[in-house]
């Protein structure tokens, strides 16, 4: 069986910088791949390479076996690959409903009329609990609702592959749970999902496999528990000093408690323009 999403040796250089260097992953239907790594590791660039925002300089992108390497974003969307953006990108002049309707209008093969798309949008909003704010402008939403809107916009494309770029950022722990439950539900429905996340609790609770990136390269891939306990990952994330201290603490406690802390990673607000 062909995987929903496969990348082979995917790479891009910006001048002398190898922002993403030889990443190969496979995501089957109904599986969740987590992508973690410190700031500037190339996680978002990796997504941008797959969804067409940036053209790779080497490697392949296969969606359900079809070669979509370097295709334009709308071609990727038409192949039912949807994404959210790390920095929310709502259409500010449109209502929440129309924000979602856009995806249904153009993303779905063949598209639909405005009225039909609004119908689809209403279904998606209903499902994500956003019906109450459908008429508002996206700038009037709470952080949690704004994050949900991004997911709703992606789901309106009726995707089979879904990329969530830090869909938990800025959420309170209580607000995360519904978002996580949604991801589990989508997985059960057979979506292949790629989650870029700094919230380790989210990674641990929804991912089947975790890819750790560092400086554009694959550091390690494996099941979440294994990966998050790995020395190299802890070092990559927290730096040498902290890693040593934690190792010492763990030795003291004599147990193998949670490795990488259950909080948001050490990340300054708005990781915007990283390398390149």
């Amino acid at each position: 069986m062909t995987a929903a999403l496969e990348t082979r040796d995917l790479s891009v250089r910006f001048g002398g910088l190898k922002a993403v260097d030889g990443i190969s992953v496979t995501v089957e239907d109904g599986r969740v791949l987590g992508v973690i790594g410190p700031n500037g590791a190339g996680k978002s660039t990796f997504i941008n390479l797959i969804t067409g925002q940036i053209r790779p300089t080497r490697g392949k992108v296969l969606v359900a076996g079809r070669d979509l390497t370097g295709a334009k974003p709308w071609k990727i969307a038409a192949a039912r690959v949807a994404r959210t953006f790390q920095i929310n990108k709502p259409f500010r002049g449109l209502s929440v409903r129309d924000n979602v309707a856009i995806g249904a209008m153009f993303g779905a093969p063949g598209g639909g009329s405005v009225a039909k798309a609004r119908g689809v949008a209403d279904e998606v909003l209903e499902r994500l609990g956003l019906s109450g704010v459908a008429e508002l402008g996206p700038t009037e939403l709470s952080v949690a609702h704004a994050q949900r809107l991004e997911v709703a916009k992606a789901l309106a494309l009726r995707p089979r592959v879904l990329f969530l770029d830090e869909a938990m950022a800025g959420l309170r722990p209580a607000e995360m749970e519904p978002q996580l439950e949604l991801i589990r539900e989508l997985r059960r429905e057979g979506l292949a999902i790629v989650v870029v996340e700094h919230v380790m609790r989210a990674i641990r609770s929804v991912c089947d496999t975790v890819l750790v990136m560092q400086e554009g390269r694959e550091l390690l891939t494996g099941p979440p528990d294994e990966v998050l306990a790995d020395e190299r990952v802890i070092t990559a994330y927290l730096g040498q000093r902290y890693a040593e201290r934690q190792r010492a603490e763990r030795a003291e406690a004599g147990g193998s408690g949670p490795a990488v802390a259950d909080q948001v990673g050490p990340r300054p607000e708005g990781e915007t323009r990283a390398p390149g």
Partner: protein
Amino acid sequence: MAATSARPGMPESESESAHPELGAPTTGPPKAAPAGRTTASQLAGWALVLGLLVICLLAPKLFIPSFLRTLSAVFMFATLAQAWNIIGGFTGYPSFGNVVFFGLGGYTIAVLMARSHWSFWPALVVAVVLGAAYAMLIGIPTLRLKGHYFAIATLGVAEGTREIVLNVPKVTGGGAGITVPAVGPSATTSYPGNTGFLYYFLALLVVAMLAVYAIARSRFGFALRAINQDEDAAAAAGINTTRMKIAAFMVSGAITAAAGSIYAFQQVSIYPDRLFSVDITVLMVIMAVIGGSGTVIGPLVGGVGLQFLSEYLRQNFTDYHTFIFGAIIIVAVVLLPEGAVRFASETVRQRRLPIMDNLRRYRL
């Protein structure tokens, strides 16, 4: 300075970058309360349009010829503003070279009628097709640019095209201009006169208004607005942004070319410096923006208002009119950055004049 920053309820913009639109296309500010209340103001707007239409149809019986010419100019500029609105207002690509389609349309008519002895109507069709084709031709490279780069690239194309027209005198008559055979035995189409041109321009304005009205409600219009607000997100939502932008430019170019065609016929003699004047582009932009770019009614309001004003100034302050007009542009940009239509609807909504809000909105 400290006093303004500390103003309660007016938080400084969070991500205030020095180059907000280099990466993303320019977007209007958040337009509060989408949908909902719009139907009432829309209804009022269309009632106004209908009223004006009736007056216009009766115009030849009501007004003196010089006023009919003024009215023709008003319709023409409203049409041009509306055409600009499609690419500049809806799509967010501020073309500063839209006059190129105007000039192209005018010269197509003049050349076909004077040199090839075509009659007006088939020449008009050719002009419109050429306008759209030229928009596609220049749109393919320039619509990849954003912000100022797009604005000035289109300006450069317009100026460059004028120079070319100027330098092929065998076809275009060069700087000496070209004259459409309007009277006598060489006339291919009888000259329609003041009333005729009034109706031509009125009909074109109606077509432009209906086109924009239809676009605003269609998938196409949604795509354009999405591109305006976030091009990356629009592409990720499945919108073929390249094709949509080019299509918008083509519609804009076609309408503008039609206006140029009628104008050339009306003027009889045309010159490159007039038909490709940057001032015409700027008038389109200012009329659309002052009226309300990205709205259906705004460019009509801006076009009608400013063209009447301009005519009034020309007649009453002949020496100073451009000077005063410059001052008016400055004041209007500062006080009505969102356009008259949004200003009016905000005034109604808040029951006060939101002048200070406008002043605060974009200042440093």
